């Protein structure tokens, strides 16, 4: 009973936070409430026995999306709150309520039993090369989805770079600079652990990548790592390597397939599957980290680069 009470509180909190984030007068408040909402969501998912997703939601839904929204807010002028008239609010509300009624009526018919695919996935888990079922689905059973997902991420970066406005140079704060330098090795260590753990426990490429990106963003905001930009060939190579390592691994796997079985796209050879998956994940993590960093902070402003190049030597 007390558990149900906890659930009810959590759900209510989620709904209130979401509503407040939509209805708040100031955009800044909306973004802050959205981040709080993301964290609550992560809590709810941890409660629902999906720790992988809770990790990812905390990193992405709350952390990354929040950071992105804040950097977007910083780029625009302050808004005067816009007041909408009643008809402008009423008709959408009626439409939304109708839709909600329909969706709820349909959802009530959902059966309480799990999908038959769960058993199939469990039965095939021993052949997949990893012991964590989510990783097995992501990088073996449905690896084509994951490959395309990495392409989508790459594409978002391409689009964002293409339309990116020129960045404004800002100054950094000495304390945050030394703090960020202290933080960096720890972040790398933690990310490595998350990646390794992904094979058997919650964790994996995306969570590790998001963590690495968080470290890199902090450093970049403090004007470190200025070589970290798209125009640098090696960075480009690393970013592209997430997808290309995947494709190359798949092609290699096709070559390694013995003659008595059919050659099938994306099938890892059974004995080597674990190695292949770790390889793909390693490159995916690096690529995800770099892509997310560039997505959040964009290319460094040209003036800032020049200033760093001349000023960096004097400081050391």
């Amino acid at each position, binding site marked *: 009973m007390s558990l149900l009470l906890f659930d009810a509180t959590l759900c209510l909190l989620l709904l209130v936070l979401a509503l407040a984030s939509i209805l708040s007068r100031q955009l800044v408040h909306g973004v802050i409430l959205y981040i709080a909402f993301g964290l609550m969501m992560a809590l709810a998912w941890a409660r629902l026995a999906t720790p992988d997703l809770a990790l990812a939601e905390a990193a992405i839904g709350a952390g990354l999306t929040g950071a992105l929204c804040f950097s977007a807010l910083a780029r625009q002028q302050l808004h005067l709150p816009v007041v909408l008239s009643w008809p402008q609010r009423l008709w959408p509300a009626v439409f939304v309520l109708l839709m909600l009624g*329909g*969706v709820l*009526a*349909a*959802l009530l*018919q*959902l*059966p309480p039993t*799990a*999908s*038959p*695919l769960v058993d*199939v*996935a469990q039965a*095939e888990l021993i052949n997949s090369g990893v012991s964590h079922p989510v990783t097995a689905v992501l990088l*073996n*059973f*449905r*690896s*084509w*989805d994951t490959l*395309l*997902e990495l*392409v*989508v991420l790459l*594409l*978002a970066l*391409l*689009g964002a770079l*293409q*339309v990116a406005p020129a960045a404004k140079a800002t100054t950094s704060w000495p304390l945050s600079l030394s703090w960020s330098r202290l933080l960096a090795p720890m972040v790398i260590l933690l990310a490595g652990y998350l990646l390794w753990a992904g094979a058997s426990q919650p964790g994996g490429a995306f969570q590790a990548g998001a963590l690495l990106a968080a470290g890199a963003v902090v450093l970049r905001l403090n004007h470190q790592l200025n070589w970290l930009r798209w125009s640098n*060939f090696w960075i*480009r*190579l690393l970013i*592209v390597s997430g*997808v*290309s390592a995947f*494709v190359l691994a798949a*092609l290699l796997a096709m070559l390694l397939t013995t003659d008595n079985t*059919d050659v*099938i*796209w*994306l*099938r*890892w050879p059974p004995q080597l599957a674990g190695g292949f998956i770790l390889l793909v994940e390693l490159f995916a993590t690096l690529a995800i980290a770099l892509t997310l960093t560039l997505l959040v902070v964009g290319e460094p402003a040209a003036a800032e680069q020049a200033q760093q190049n001349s000023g960096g030597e004097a400081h050391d």
Partner: protein
Amino acid sequence: MMVLLLVLPLVGALLMLLWPKIAPLLTLLTATICSLAALQLLLQVSEQGSQQILLAGWPSGLAISLEANSLSCLLILLTTVLQLLVALYAFATYRRDKLGTGFWPLSSLLQLGLTSLWLSRDLFNLYVCLELLGLVAVALVSLSGDKAIKPALNYLLLSLFGSLCYLLGVAMLYGAYGVLDISALALQWQTNILSTAALLLMTLGLMLKAALWPLHGWLPAAHGAAPAPVSALLSALVVKGPLFILCLLWLQLASAPQAVAIAPLFTGCGLAALLLGGVSALRTPFAKNMVAYSTVAQLGYAMLALGLLLRFNQPLFAAALWLFVLAHALAKAACFLAIGEITATLGGKRLNTLKGASQTMPLAMFAFAVAGGSLIGLPPSGGFLAKWALLQGLWLQGDQLLWLLAIVLATLLSAAYVFRVVVLAFDRADPVAPDFAPRILPQWLALLPALAVWAMALYSEPLLRLLKQEGL
């Protein structure tokens, strides 16, 4: 062969990102190889029947399944050939039109997204393909710079909303049946509130993404603002992706009562699109927007054919549906390239820039007129074939006078907007002077798909047979 068609554009795009200098040549190379591979695949499939792959070799259900039937192969061939043609056009004009270097990898990724969409038979994989397609399309539109940012953002937001509606439907279906594979889902399908609601949500999302009336508002601005080769790709191919999924859902999944119940919606929206889209095309003062509105109108034919197919279950309508898609893709590519070339050379976006274009740029104008003939449905073009199949189907059902009347009206409207341009172009009294000497090669490239759509008539027999069998 299927794998080659998927991997080659992807690898090409990655190489282009690393070495932007060789991107144009690489695009031409991959598009050529893919076109040949697509032709080979089509021949294979039409001889030996459709091919299926369970990716990564896992049992059906767990694995993502790909299927190449003759319709998918035909669409892949269309995609690769148009890709090649547009790449050639872009290659011939990119210095003059200051097309960003981003165009080349993006167009390769567009090909990847479309090919995987035509092949995929897995609901969630289709979602990922849809998102890929939507993001590529928006990135391509935003190549135009400042003036395209607002339409691109609007397009992106609506497209994301559409994908989310689709995703909610997928989640509901997975919750109810526990499978994602379309053929497996079809076997267990039950008619109840849950499945109906899921289908309706997915339909809403897909109609938004395919710019089907009344959810077409974003299309004219986005397609009008994009660079000419991009508009050609978007109008010819990208909007057909969600349409394909829509047909997949309603033809393979929905039960007969559900299909019959939804049919009036599709036919009604189709008719409205034909009439209102045509009127809008007639009224807009901008050249590219006119062509974009004509896309809205022409998609109405496809929707009408889908509605009639669901209502009467007559294979002729399936043939009509896909013939419209093919003919429209070729004709619209020709229109956008021709209009793009003319407006670039004569320097202006408004329709009256085209004044006297038949004198200054006869080839491009000829391409537009020929493609326009297919949009109207003049015999013996591809557009005529499609319309003929539609009329024949209606004739067999008997007593459908109202439909005939509506189709005649729509035909007159499309004739009106095509002739509006042609009349302007033949007004030779005071032609608009070109900014620079018109170039021949891009005009020929615009003419090629226009000729191809008329050549469709030569292959009418095999096309009709093939599409009647496998209109999904």
